[in-house]
């Protein structure tokens, strides 16, 4: 259903004013040589874990597939009864089959997560060691809601997905930018300190962000 | 190394706190400098400039350039006035026939503590001031002239002086020129906050390089009935022969602005 008026509005008027304004040059500060903004990250896994701890993100290391399964089962067991929402991929289909233990599962191929989901499970586009962040996308990780709707978001990943810093992680985001309508960097749990500057973990987004990381 | 110093004594220092200038003179003489004082100097134009009246400030700035044209080394006991000449004259006089002289002038004018440490290369001027002193960083001095270490360096070498830490020493005292009387409620609150930090520091004196900050802080502290007194860096460095000793008991409104160093009754 199209809008009654053409959608562009005062485009030519505004651009005209902008071009006219830019005919006069503004002063510029002299350039100053700048190196990298952050010191290089040495041990990616160690740094990721250290940063994650400061973000209230739980990182569970697993040395093999069995370890991943065990970790996921443990997290799911700690949740109250109810549906979970899982990204529909062969790996997660298998994992859910091994760990859901009768809990109802809604798949991303069915649509958006239900508001009452107890947890969501997804893959990710990458991990950032410098900041303890998780890179996700709508196309690659089961949609938009999967990383924000439920009180617990579980990410299944492996050490090969570690990026050292923001330059490399954002470069990856640039690569996938036109294949996804949402790309995001998630750095820890939802939080607020609006009331008296007291930090509360878990505002509107997940209160728990669990990263299950297979090291081999 | 210059042998002759030309004195730039700001208008309100000349009229309202001349002892600060006298104390600066005492120190410079002690160090062996010849002094010149161009009596034609009046005002650098800062009040008009800050108020936005650049057309009124401009002729004063041009006059200043002419008055100090032949001075090789100019020293001033005020950070804000030094800032006006070094940092703002280029913009104010950008269309003036004198604009070619302004950059060079800026390099020849120095704030007092800057001159002592960076030009004269002196940190110990032979002063004695056995009191606890907190140092306040005046805004223009700190942020436009980047002078932070020099006053502290000088204070550390004063015999008997204990330099105490002042919480948020770089927070504005609230004077700000016309701001002090145009927005007295805000200026007063900022001064009250500063006075609170000063009192909490446990100092006997709060020192600064800007007489304008000191006038404002002194007014606030006296109104609060505080024990702490304000003092200009020059008066500490001139001690024990500071002009302040002459002012104790001088007739005038309220109490003396600056207590005599060594005046036990002031503690």
């Amino acid at each position, binding site marked *: 259903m199209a809008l009654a008026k053409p959608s562009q509005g005062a485009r030519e008027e505004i651009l005209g004013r902008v071009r006219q304004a830019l005919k006069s040059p503004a002063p510029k500060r002299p350039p100053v040589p700048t190196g990298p903004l952050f010191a290089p990250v040495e041990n990616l896994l160690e740094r990721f874990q250290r940063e994650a701890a400061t973000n209230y993100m739980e990182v569970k290391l697993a040395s093999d597939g069995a370890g991943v399964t065990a970790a996921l089962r443990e997290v799911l067991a700690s949740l109250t009864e109810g549906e979970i929402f899982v990204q529909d991929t062969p790996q997660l289909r298998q994992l859910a089959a091994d760990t859901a233990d009768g809990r109802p599962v809604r798949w991303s191929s069915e649509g958006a997560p239900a508001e009452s989901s107890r947890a969501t499970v997804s893959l990710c586009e990458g991990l950032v060691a410098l900041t303890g962040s998780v890179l996700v996308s709508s196309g690659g990780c089961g949609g938009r809601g999967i990383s924000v709707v439920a009180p617990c978001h579980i990410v299944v990943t492996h050490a090969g997905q570690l990026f050292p810093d923001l330059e490399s992680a954002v470069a990856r985001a640039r690569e996938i930018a036109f294949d996804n309508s*949402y790309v995001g960097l998630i750095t*820890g749990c939802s939080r607020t300190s609006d009331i008296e500057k007291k930090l509360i973990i878990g505002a509107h987004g997940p209160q728990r962000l669990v990263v299950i990381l297979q090291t081999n | 190394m210059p042998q002759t110093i030309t004195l730039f004594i700001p208008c309100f220092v000349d009229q309202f706190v001349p002892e600060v200038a006298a104390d600066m003179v005492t120190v410079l003489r002690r160090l062996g400098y010849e002094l010149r004082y161009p009596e034609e100097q009046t005002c650098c134009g800062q009040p008009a400039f800050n108020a936005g009246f650049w057309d009124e400030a401009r002729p004063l700035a041009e006059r200043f350039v002419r008055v100090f044209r032949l001075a090789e080394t100019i020293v001033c006991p005020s950070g804000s006035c030094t800032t006006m000449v070094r940092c703002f004259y280029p913009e104010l006089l950008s269309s003036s026939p004198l604009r070619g002289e302004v950059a060079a002038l800026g390099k020849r004018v120095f704030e007092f503590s800057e001159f002592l440490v960076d030009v004269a290369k002196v940190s110990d001027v032979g002063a004695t001031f056995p009191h606890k002193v907190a140092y306040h960083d005046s805004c223009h001095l700190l942020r436009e002239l980047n002078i932070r270490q020099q006053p502290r360096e000088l204070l550390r070498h004063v015999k008997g002086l204990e330099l105490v830490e002042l919480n948020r020493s770089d927070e504005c005292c609230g004077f700000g020129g016309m701001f002090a009387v145009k927005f007295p409620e805000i200026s007063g609150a900022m001064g009250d906050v500063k006075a609170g930090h000063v009192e909490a520091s446990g100092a006997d004196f709060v020192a600064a390089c800007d007489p304008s900050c000191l006038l404002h802080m002194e007014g606030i502290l006296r109104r609060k009935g505080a024990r702490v007194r304000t003092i200009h860096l020059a008066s500490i460095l001139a001690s024990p022969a500071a002009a302040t000793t002459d002012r104790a008991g001088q007739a005038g409104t309220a109490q003396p602005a600056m207590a005599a160093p060594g005046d036990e009754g002031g503690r």
Partner: protein
Amino acid sequence: MTATREQEFHRQARDKAENLAHRKTVRWAIDTYDAAVARGKSRFADFEAARQRCYEIKWEAVNHLDRYLEEFEANVLKRGGHVYWAADSEQARNYVLELAAARGVKRIVKAKSMVTEEIYLNPALEKQGIEVRETDLGEYIVQLRHEPPYHIVTPVMHLSRAQVIELFREKIPDDVKGDSHEELTAAARRALRRAFFSADMGISGANFLIADTGMIAITTNEGNGRLCTSVPRIHVVFAGIEKVIPRLQDLATFWPMLATTGTGQHLTAYSTLIGGPRMASENDGPEEFHVILLDNGRSKLLADTEQREVLHCIRCGACLNACPVYRNIGGHTYNTVYPGPIGSVLTPHLRGLAEFQHLSYASSLCGNCNTVCPVKIDLSHHLLQNRRNAVEQVRPPWRLRLGMRLWRWSMMDAGRFRLAGRVGKALLRAFGGAAALKPWTEYRDLPPVPEKSFRQMWRQNGAR
């Protein structure tokens, strides 16, 4: 006679400045912020280099604004989104009002957007019978209190927990299960989840518009921005035209910088990029995506080459926290959408110098704002330029002009200067307690009036 803006400003400033409880609350918030920022800055190998880089990216973007806006628009359209160029507040409001009417929108959830405050969007939507719910916790609280946000990043810096308890017990009593900070946050979460999942439209602002990918960047900690842009079927973005930056890669610099100067964090919890509505292959997300680019005076500021860099602002709020004036008078006293140093500089350009020049004078020009600005805007110098512009363009009262001229005349000659000094001192001695001196004496004692000037001391004995 109703008070002018300036008179009202004085009244509110006095009220807040003398309120010691308010001073204590704000001090506490700022001390917390300062400590966090100090930690945040230490994470950078070279924080000053980061500021320079941010400056350079913004300079490039703003000084080639037409090129980058066109590139941004082309990419948004390519991705199935709509772009609307709004010359002013009214056009921006009308676009979304018509869109809402055409799509049968009854409920809207909003993530924080200063631009939507600037155009007075909420009242216009409500007038059309649409329920608008602010979802950022602080914005939600001030919305319930029917007051504007206190600060652009921390909207309820001025409130205590006791005040929030009272508010929630009145407005959302069924959601409140306790008095602690955790319970209050949980109560808001419950109330707002109902809003998220029943809304027809989500409205957000944008911290950055990314030209090379046609994406918008939003940063939040709470996740409300994520929910506003994931759950409702329509997503509308409001952004000033100056928000565009050239490349996605630039965010590797801006994301940590904004997080550090905004809240002292390394990164905010959610650094989000949205490029259009859901794609055909995706399982959820809005079906429609609209970006409203707002001019509303920005192109005029762009033409002011002296102050063009004011458009570099990334709305981090650092200058507010750094400002000793703001710390004493608080955010509401400014009575503008943008308070603090950036607000004082910017508002005359957006809304008129005559009415808002007083904000440029309500500063001691301490320059602390300049030192904390992540994009190196020379805020205090722009305040000086606003003052000069005010004198030149908005004629000051004749008394002031005459006074300045007289002052200059007496300063132009050493003899007149000495005479003026003698006269001034005599008057002070005689009328020290006079009402005319009240601006000084209300809060401060007068200094003693010296007998001699330095000039006289010099003449008499070389000032020995």
